[in-house]
């Protein structure tokens, strides 16, 4: 429950921490798209090398990124099983009516790699970028949308607040859970419906306290003169530096390589 790394900034002094968040945001997008483009063994080796380099550069312990994996482990397993069993093709072996196909195994392997790299890749971004930088980047990148009356500033403020309160609400969930268990609540046994109804004594106090917090926070923000994006200056305005341009060039090179692997890659994987 508490091991979701998204929104958990890990302070360190690395080149990735110093990069402009816009570069990291776009870079993550490029990386994710590339993951789904790349074909062929060489392509996967290439992506693995790039990812390993990024992990090394970030100076964040690899364990922190793996923690994020725990949250998707079920999705991962289910994807792998479904892909293995339901991809038509040449059967490797058959149990009862279900057969594992060669194509299925390859597809499953591919999906497993893609999903785990996707999580690691986006964890690198969230671990090296403070949520505020990230929302600043989004506000900046999406600011053209203001023309069509999209409240870009408000959305990014909401997101950064949500990100800040995730760990707090997690802690609170934990606390309420323990308190209810101490009073005899049971969150672990029974069928699905029973389990869901058993969550009510957890969710009700959690919602009440979340609204209370929202109310307090709104008051605190108003007390500190918050009145929307108008006339607001920035403590950390986004400015591109030399390293950011270099990063953009590398990113383009990576994207180009990915496209090459997509067109020319192939083989058995």
């Amino acid at each position, binding site marked *: 429950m508490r091991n979701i790394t998204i929104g958990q*900034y890990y*302070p360190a002094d690395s080149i990735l921490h110093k990069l402009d968040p816009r570069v990291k945001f776009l870079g993550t997008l490029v990386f994710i798209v590339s993951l789904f483009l790349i074909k062929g063994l060489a392509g996967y080796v290439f992506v693995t090398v790039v990812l390993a380099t990024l992990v090394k550069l970030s100076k964040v312990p690899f364990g922190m990124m793996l923690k994020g994996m725990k949250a998707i482990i079920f999705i991962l397993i289910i994807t792998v099983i479904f892909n293995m069993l339901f991809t038509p093709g040449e059967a490797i072996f058959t149990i009862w009516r279900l057969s594992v196909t060669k194509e299925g195994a390859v597809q499953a392997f591919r999906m497993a790699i893609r999903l785990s790299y996707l999580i690691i890749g986006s964890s690198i971004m969230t671990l090296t970028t*403070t*949520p*505020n930088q990230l929302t600043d980047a989004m506000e900046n990148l999406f600011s053209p949308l203001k023309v069509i009356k999209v409240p870009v500033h408000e959305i990014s403020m909401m997101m*950064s*607040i949500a*990100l*800040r309160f995730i*760990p*707090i609400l997690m802690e609170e969930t934990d606390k309420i859970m323990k308190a209810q268990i101490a009073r005899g609540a049971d969150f672990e046994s029974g069928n699905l419906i029973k389990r869901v109804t058993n969550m009510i004594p957890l969710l009700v106090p959690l919602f009440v306290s979340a609204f*209370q*917090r929202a109310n*307090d*926070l709104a*008051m*605190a*923000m*108003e*007390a*500190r*003169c*918050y*009145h929307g994006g108008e*006339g*607001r*200056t*920035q*403590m*950390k*305005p986004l400015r591109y530096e030399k390293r950011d341009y270099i990063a953009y060039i590398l990113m383009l090179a990576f994207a180009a390589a990915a496209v090459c692997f997509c067109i020319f890659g192939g083989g058995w994987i």
Partner: protein
Amino acid sequence: MEIIKAVKLCFDYMKYGEDDSKVERVRAIDDVTLDIKKGDFIAILGHNGSGKSTLAKHMNALLVPTEGTMWVDEIDTAGEEEIWKIRQKAGMVFQNPDNQIIGTVVEEDVGFGPENIGVPTDEIWARVDDSLTKVGMLKHRKKSPNRLSGGQKQRVAIAGVIAMRPECIVMDEPTAMLDPTGRRDVLRTVHELNDKLGITVILITHYMEEVIDADHVFVMDSGHVVMQGTPREIFSEVDKLKKYRLDVPQVTELAYELKKSGVDIPAGILTREELVEALV
């Protein structure tokens, strides 16, 4: 000169019944008149529901009086136009340290206020450095607020307020959720700000020990200011305080009991040293 002045201040809020229909007017503040001088350290005492928090919210224009007037540095809080000026002049620190920190890094949170009032970037950095130094949190500037103790979070919140260069700080039970160490640190910080920078402090609390060093104390009960004076004057009336469901510091109570049973000591003893001196 008065930094905060209230004349015949009243505030009503509506109470809704279960079915949303039954509306009842509740008077939270009733006919409060008070003057707070620049540079003073003021304490406002009162048990839960006495209206002290409601009064605090008027000093920051978070609430506007139903009747009467409130002036902050000679600006009427009822006027809409100057509301941001008022909030810059009278900063506010709340009870729950978690629910008032907006930034995910200490320094970003301190910069939040100055950003809102449009301070240029370089100046924001200077102010953040300066404010964090003043509250003794400079070495934690890069940390996530979630990794700080309650007392440290509260000091960050104070830094966030002084980064806006306020004339006065209104603190609504800032130590209620802290452990004794955190409480001591926060109070020391506040006293330093008051002594060294001359910032007016309005401390709302129900811990009597925090009140002893104040210049002036107001006691509130059911919306009225029922007592006011120096801490010594206030604490010499133990019976009256008890009537308002407030405790007095242990030493003061002991001295009071001793005096009642015939020992010859002065009224309104506030510290252990004073009591020892009076007895020896």
